[in-house]
């Protein structure tokens, strides 16, 4: 992010404006299009950063603002608030109208409030009661009675920041308030959303600190493109991407960029779910939109300081069961297990029972290992106690078993401190927040630090004109370990390590972290259980194969609005989002993935600019009819520039710098696209009972353009939507049961461009050479460069995808809002979906971009909310969010039945025709009926499992293997339920959230692989079982009568780990989980401070799942589309968080 660096150098200079031209000239080389706007942005940014840097002036500014509030003449109002039964109301909000000046009532319902002289009205509100305005122009002492009411007419933020009454909406929108976000204890806004809204599925990908989460609203909408919702912060699009340095199933955990937002800065999050809700965002909103409104200072607000501090303690949740009986080794020719020493490189734990082994240090012992197992002094290198020999032949010291797993992990910690200062005068307000998060992971050395600064301010210089803006700066630093399918992956080597080998080499877990001799011999060769081959020792990984990431990000917006009158408000909102993500991954010489050593420098620079122009207005035509309209234009540009440098063949160990590499290769990768959109919307209302909204959007997207023969019309596409709401309760007489009854309906289309840039052309690339079994090599090779045709063909004739969705819903409120039911059903189809249609490789290509796919989606969402108990002393509110969605792939390209998304050869995530999105596809048992009438697709046939009854086969008596791979699992849950509860007793409030995910398969690749090595507990049981016939039928259809023992031969065959059958390791990944639980006490107001709270909460403290491995909330491929894979993934964590928050 060079221009930022240049810029920082210049902002020190007072004469900012002159320097901008220099900066601009530099920048224009990279992006000519938005110079004008960029100048504007620079000016504004310059202004804000100058404020921050020149603290002296800033303090002055604060004083000025402060003085505005103190200079004003004041008077004191005292009062008391009752409910309509005459009970005092505790905690009712008392606010001076048109300001944020306010307080809450104490335990006796009393309040005292200093108000400016000019103030004439108080607004008194309390959840579940009708808000009341109270005239105070003639009194300083008030008594107010609130009647239980209906908060049925909530204002919600919809697309493009337009506030509308919820009644008018013909589609489903759900709001999550800021306090629910901060109460969750999650350091990421996405994680905090779990269970709080229907239609939303969130999956945390890894227990690594700083690991990202995937969020999907109403299932998937794109077959191969982005399926995560658009994130809009304060009206402009914000980057939530996950950038991977190593694609697919290996590498480190990766963040999603919304993690850069301090959750305490969030005022509210609104989930816009369906196509009608997101129509105004166009294409980008096709997967739903999360509209985040951040906290800002309000006008006429007292100077307010909020300080909060929290500490969390994190531990891993669950680990796969490992056997602790059998030592490293294998079977001899007679099937008798014998021990093989680490120097043999033996991978498996098929050796003898460890109780039958003891140590020896006698190099002449008949079982003594080879010379390479001893050091120059003749001492055995791999274990201080000696090598293992059969009991009775050694020194009599029984063999130890070593737990290499649980003690390795530590308690992770995070400390978060944040301070927010806000205030406002008559014409200007501001809020400044700073936060600092320092977290260490459950894996030693893993780290996540985040510092955020946010300044938001609003200016109303003249009546009707509002200028507001915000600047966010975030610096995130990560230290990460390798994980997943990767010989340098942490759990891969850790879990495979036999129980007879000590990864710590005799040191305590705490000492082992810093002890080089745990993982390296004096000759620099690696110490691990496979004699230096195989997989990295976990202590090697955390010392010699770490990755660091340094993310510098600034984003924000400037919004100018002028209201001429009710019929015309014109607005311009300019947003920018600049992220620089600079990474370095080390592999010391001797690392198993790169034995010659390797250093990867990877730098991503992402720039987003978003410009929104709006003209809105509304009013009543007459008493019955109201109209509102919107005209808008939108320009958006995205540019991601990656520079990757890889150095291999390090000259000497201990110096992990690119200058130590003998071969350095590099590449650059630019991804860019831009869109222009025009949008119009008109809404009519009749007697606040019937609302009808129609919208239309015309988009032009660069990704549809063919640079060889550009035609604007080719990039353009148009799509409409209509929605309607009918408040049928308006027709009914007032009754005490049904307070609100609303039906809603919408029909909407959304067009989408190709998911990737540059898909309209076919190109040559510099290829990687190899067959996938060992490291691939890249050009230049021996000084020669090389190019070949990319495996994927471009297509200049691509047209946009089109999604059509119908949504119907009902919103019922009973008993003045104390019970509410909101239900939605939707049904949609994606047509002409753009996907890489597979070609037979004999065409010379792997696939071609094609408008070929079709997918249907349907789902039900129900939100049930209730306030079962509401007294002055006890309040209980509860909310249940139910989500069920299903995406069926109905058409791939002609003749194509499946398409790869992610995963492995034996089990991968695919689009399979007729199956749910992302079906797990892989090897299956042969069943009766294969190839018959009931086998028309790639699903598993219904018949009995066929047993291999060929006596010559090495798999005699085992399940036979189906030669065709099939859909063996569905990673999508049947439904998700989130049950939220909160209780208030006086100053104490408590809450819990249960998270229930029913179904959703996970391929347990960890169990698959560990069965091969004889390391899983299950293999310890089956290897000694008495011979039993496996359930199934012989080739003649009679029941199987061939007894077998599932021993090493079984688990290393096609049926076991690394075999071709993946079916037996597909497991139910559903759960019931105590996602959140917490208690907090709200501090009484004193002279020194205005209030605050202290609380303790837990996240993910308990879950129950049938899954036989780590916590099933995991995803090997991170936030990508291919979900449902666990292959030595990092287990998730449970946390206890203590938080203190004080207002001054």
């Amino acid at each position, binding site marked *: 992010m060079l221009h930022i660096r240049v810029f920082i150098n210049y902002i020190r200079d007072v004469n900012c404006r002159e320097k901008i031209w220099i900066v601009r000239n530099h920048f224009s080389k990279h992006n000519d299009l938005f110079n004008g706007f960029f100048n504007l942005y620079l000016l504004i940014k310059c202004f804000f950063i100058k404020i921050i840097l020149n603290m002296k002036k800033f303090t002055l500014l604060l004083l000025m603002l402060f003085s505005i509030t103190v200079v004003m003449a004041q008077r004191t109002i005292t009062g008391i608030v009752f409910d309509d039964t005459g009970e005092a109301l505790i905690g009712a909000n008392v606010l001076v109208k048109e300001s944020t000046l306010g307080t809450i009532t104490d335990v006796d319902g009393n309040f005292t409030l200093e108000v400016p002289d000019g103030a004439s009205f108080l607004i008194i509100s309390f959840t579940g009661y009708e808000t009341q305005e109270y005239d105070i122009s003639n009194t300083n002492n008030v008594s107010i009675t609130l009647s239980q009411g209906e908060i049925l007419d909530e204002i919600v933020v919809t697309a493009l920041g337009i506030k509308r009454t919820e009644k008018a909406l013909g589609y489903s929108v759900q709001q999550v308030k800021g306090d629910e976000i901060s109460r969750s204890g999650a350091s990421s806004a996405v994680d905090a959303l779990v269970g709080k809204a229907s239609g939303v599925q969130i999956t945390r990908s890894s227990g690594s600190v700083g690991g990202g989460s995937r969020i999907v609203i109403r299932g998937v909408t794109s077959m191969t493109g982005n399926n995560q919702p658009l994130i809009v912060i304060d009206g402009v699009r914000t980057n939530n991407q996950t950038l991977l340095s190593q694609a697919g199933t290996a590498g480190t955990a990766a963040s999603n960029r919304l993690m850069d937002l301090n959750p305490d800065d969030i005022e509210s999050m609104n989930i816009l779910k369906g196509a009608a809700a997101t129509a105004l965002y166009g294409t980008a909103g096709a997967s739903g939109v999360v509209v985040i409104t951040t906290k800002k200072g309000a006008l006429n607000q007292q100077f307010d300081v909020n300080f909060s501090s929290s500490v969390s303690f994190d531990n891993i949740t669950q680990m796969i069961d490992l056997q602790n009986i059998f030592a490293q080794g294998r079977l001899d020719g007679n099937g008798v297990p014998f021990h093989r020493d680490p120097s043999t*490189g033996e991978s498996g734990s098929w050796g003898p029972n460890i109780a039958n082994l003891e140590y020896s240090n006698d190099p002449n012992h008949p079982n003594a290992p080879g010379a390479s197992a001893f050091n120059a002094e003749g001492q055995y290198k791999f274990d201080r106690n000696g090598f293992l020999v059969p009991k009775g032949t050694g020194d009599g010291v029984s063999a130890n078993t070593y737990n290499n797993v649980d003690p390795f992990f530590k308690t992770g910690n995070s400390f978060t401190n944040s301070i927010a200062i806000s205030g406002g005068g008559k014409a200007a307000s501001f809020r400044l927040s700073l936060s600092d998060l320092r977290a260490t992971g459950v894996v030693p050395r893993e780290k996540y630090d985040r510092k955020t600064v946010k300044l938001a301010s609003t200016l109303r210089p003249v009546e009707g004109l509002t200028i507001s803006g915000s600047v966010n700066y975030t610096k995130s630093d990560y230290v990460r370990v390798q994980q997943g399918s990767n*010989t340098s992956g942490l759990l891969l080597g850790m879990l495979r390590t036999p129980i007879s080998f000590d990864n710590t080499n005799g040191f305590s877990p705490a000492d082992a972290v810093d002890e080089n001799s745990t993982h390296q011999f004096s000759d620099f060769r690696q110490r691990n259980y496979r004699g230096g081959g*195989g997989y990295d020792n976990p202590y090697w990984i955390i010392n010699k194969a770490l990755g660091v990431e340094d993310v510098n990000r600034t984003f924000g917006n400037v919004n100018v609005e002028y209201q*001429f009158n009710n019929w015309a408000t014109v607005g311009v909102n300019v947003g920018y989002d600049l992220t620089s993500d600079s990474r370095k991954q080390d592999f010391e010489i001797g690392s198993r993935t790169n034995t*010659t050593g390797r250093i990867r420098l990877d730098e991503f620079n992402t720039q987003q600019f978003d410009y929104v122009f709006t*003209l809105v207005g509304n009013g009543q035509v007459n008493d019955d009819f109201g109209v509102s309209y919107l005209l808008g234009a939108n*320009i958006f*540009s995205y540019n991601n520039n990656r520079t990757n440098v890889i150095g*291999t063949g390090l000259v000497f160990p201990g110096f992990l710098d690119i200058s130590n590499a003998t*071969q350095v290769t590099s590449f*650059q990768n*630019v991804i*860019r696209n831009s869109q222009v959109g*025009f949008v119009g919307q008109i809404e009519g209302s009749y007697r606040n009972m019937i609302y009808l909204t129609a919208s239309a959007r015309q988009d032009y997207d*660069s990704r549809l*353009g063919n*640079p060889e023969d*550009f035609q*604007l019309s080719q*990039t353009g596409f148009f799509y409409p939507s209509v929605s309607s709401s009918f408040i049928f309760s308006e027709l009914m007489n007032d009754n005490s049961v049904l307070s609100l009854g609303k039906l809603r309906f919408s029909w909407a289309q959304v067009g989408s461009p190709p998911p990737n*840039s*540059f898909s*309209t*052309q076919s*190109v*040559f690339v510099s290829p990687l*050479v*190899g*067959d996938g*079994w*060992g*490291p*691939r*090599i890249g*050009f230049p*090779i*021996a000084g*020669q*460069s*090389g190019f*070949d*045709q990319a495996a994927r*063909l471009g297509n200049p004739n691509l047209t946009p995808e089109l999604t059509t969705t119908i949504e119907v819903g009902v919103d019922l409120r009973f008993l003045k809002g104390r019970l509410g039911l909101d239900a939605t059903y939707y049904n949609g189809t994606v047509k002409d979906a753009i996907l890489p249609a597979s070609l*037979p*490789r*004999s*065409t*010379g290509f*792997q696939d071609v971009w094609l408008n070929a796919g079709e997918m249907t989606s349907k789902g039900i969402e129900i939100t049930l909310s209730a306030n079962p108990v509401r007294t002055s002393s006890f309040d209980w509110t509860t909310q249940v969010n139910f989500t069920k969605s299903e995406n069926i792939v109905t058409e791939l390209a002609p003749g194509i*039945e499946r398409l790869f998304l992610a995963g492995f*050869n034996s089990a991968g995530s695919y689009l399979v025709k007729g199956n749910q999105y992302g079906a797990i596809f892989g*090897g299956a048992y042969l069943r009766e009926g294969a190839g018959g009438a009931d086998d028309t697709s790639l699903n598993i046939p219904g018949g009995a499992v066929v047993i291999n009854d060929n006596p*010559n*086969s090495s*798999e005699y008596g085992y399940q036979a*293997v189906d*030669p065709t791979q099939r859909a063996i699992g569905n990673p999508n849950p049947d439904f998700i339920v989130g049950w939220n509860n909160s209780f208030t007793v006086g100053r104490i409030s408590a809450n819990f959230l249960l998270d229930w995910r029913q179904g959703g398969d996970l391929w347990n690749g960890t169990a698959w692989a560990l069965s091969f090595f004889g390391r899983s507990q299950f293999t310890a049981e089956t290897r000694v079982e008495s011979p039993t016939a496996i359930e199934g039928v012989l080739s003649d259809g009679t029941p199987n009568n061939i007894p077998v023992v599932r021993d090493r031969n079984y688990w290393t065959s*096609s049926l076991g780990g*690394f*075999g071709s059958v993946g079916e037996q390791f597909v497991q139910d990944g559903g759960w019931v989980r105590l996602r959140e639980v917490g208690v907090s006490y709200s501090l009484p107001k004193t002279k020194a401070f205005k209030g605050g709270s202290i609380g303790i909460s837990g996240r993910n403290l308990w879950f129950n799942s049938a899954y036989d491995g780590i916590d099933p909330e995991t995803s090997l491929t991170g936030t990508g589309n291919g979900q449902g894979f666990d292959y030595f993934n990092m287990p998730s964590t449970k946390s206890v968080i203590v938080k203190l928050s004080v207002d001054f």
Partner: protein
Amino acid sequence: MKLIYSTGFLIFLLLFSQGCEDIVGGDINRDPNNPTAVPVSAQLPAFQIALADEYGGLFSRFNGLLVQQVEGVARQWSSLNSYTGLTPNRYDASWNNIYENVLNELHVARATSIAQGFNHFEGIIDIMEAFTMMMATDVWDDIPYSEAVQGVGNINPKFDAQSKIYTAINMLLDNGISKLSGAAGGVAPGSKDVYYGGDVENWIRAAHAIKARGMLHNKNYSGAMSEAMSSFGGAAENLGYQYPDANSGGPWYRFNDGRTGDIEFHPTMKKIMTDLNDMDRLSVIDVIFVTDASYTASHPFIRPDYFQELVTYREMQFIIAESDVRNGGTQLGYDAYLAGIKASFEKFGLGDAEYDAYTAQTEINPGLGSLTLEHVMIQKYIGLYLQPEVYNDYRRTNIPELDPVSGPNVPVRWAIPQTEVLFNSNAPAAGSINVFTDRVGWNR
């Protein structure tokens, strides 16, 4: 008033629509990092290395496994070893490399070469295509060729009979020899030819060698003999690629680096060599396959700076010997037999002393008139260690005799890969080919 503002705003929108083309058009959707066309000289190293890598990669591993020169002992390779893991999807990677990374590139490069009159490029391309198609049809029998690599022009290429592919191979080799015999025309390959550095004479010899190999498969022994005689005069002329170093190591080095312990030396081959008292060569290859500084120097096949041969002088000598033995046996064939063994000793890094000691044994050196096909094929089996060609020899001659790891016999061909079966409507139906019984054309 509001009319003025509204109109103003609409004009504003109109101005934007004028600018649309500037914003979404131009080169924004042109990939700045990858070209849409490249010269043939930029392609040549890529497909040459891709071919050598495939031949020394999966072809060498699978065929070496099937003829029991190496044994899969861990992870996926243990089930591949017992044949049960040899499911169609396991062959996808080889098929992909051959069609996508070699044949497809050859076709583009040929078109460019012909258009620009680069005769030597064209000749090299033809010879490489002949080699590639032969290696593919020898394991897969009937495969797409005449309709292959046309991209979306033909998304269901038909499968051509093996005999037709061999006809095409011979035409390619003839054309290659004729193009290389003339002037380069414009640009000569030079150092961009990473096999021979543009040496035309060597390419012509290699073309004859490939012809000899093909004729042998098709039982044209006299033709094979004469082509072999026109080919290499010594090991220095072998066709192959010299991998530079550990940063870009040879296929066996890289496989072993990533998958240490998956494949080891095979007891069957050890027994064959032990029975022949072939201890010097045995000691070179009978070591644990560890990729490590201390081992790479001593194991000539797992070196990072490996010379991956495609076709060799010693293979030609064994072809001459075999053809001669089948024809009754003369001194010419006998000399070729010994020359083949000698070249093999050199490949193993052994010298004259070891060779002399070995060939002093009558079992190895029985004298003219006593030399059998068995002698020749066993020596070829050892001498071409890890060359995919040994699998072809085994299928032709059933020498050496092997015990199948499981089932009735050693597989006699490779399965048609799963992706081809799934996506090409002209591919044989899934399960219609039996890899244990359905022999390839020249093997029926």
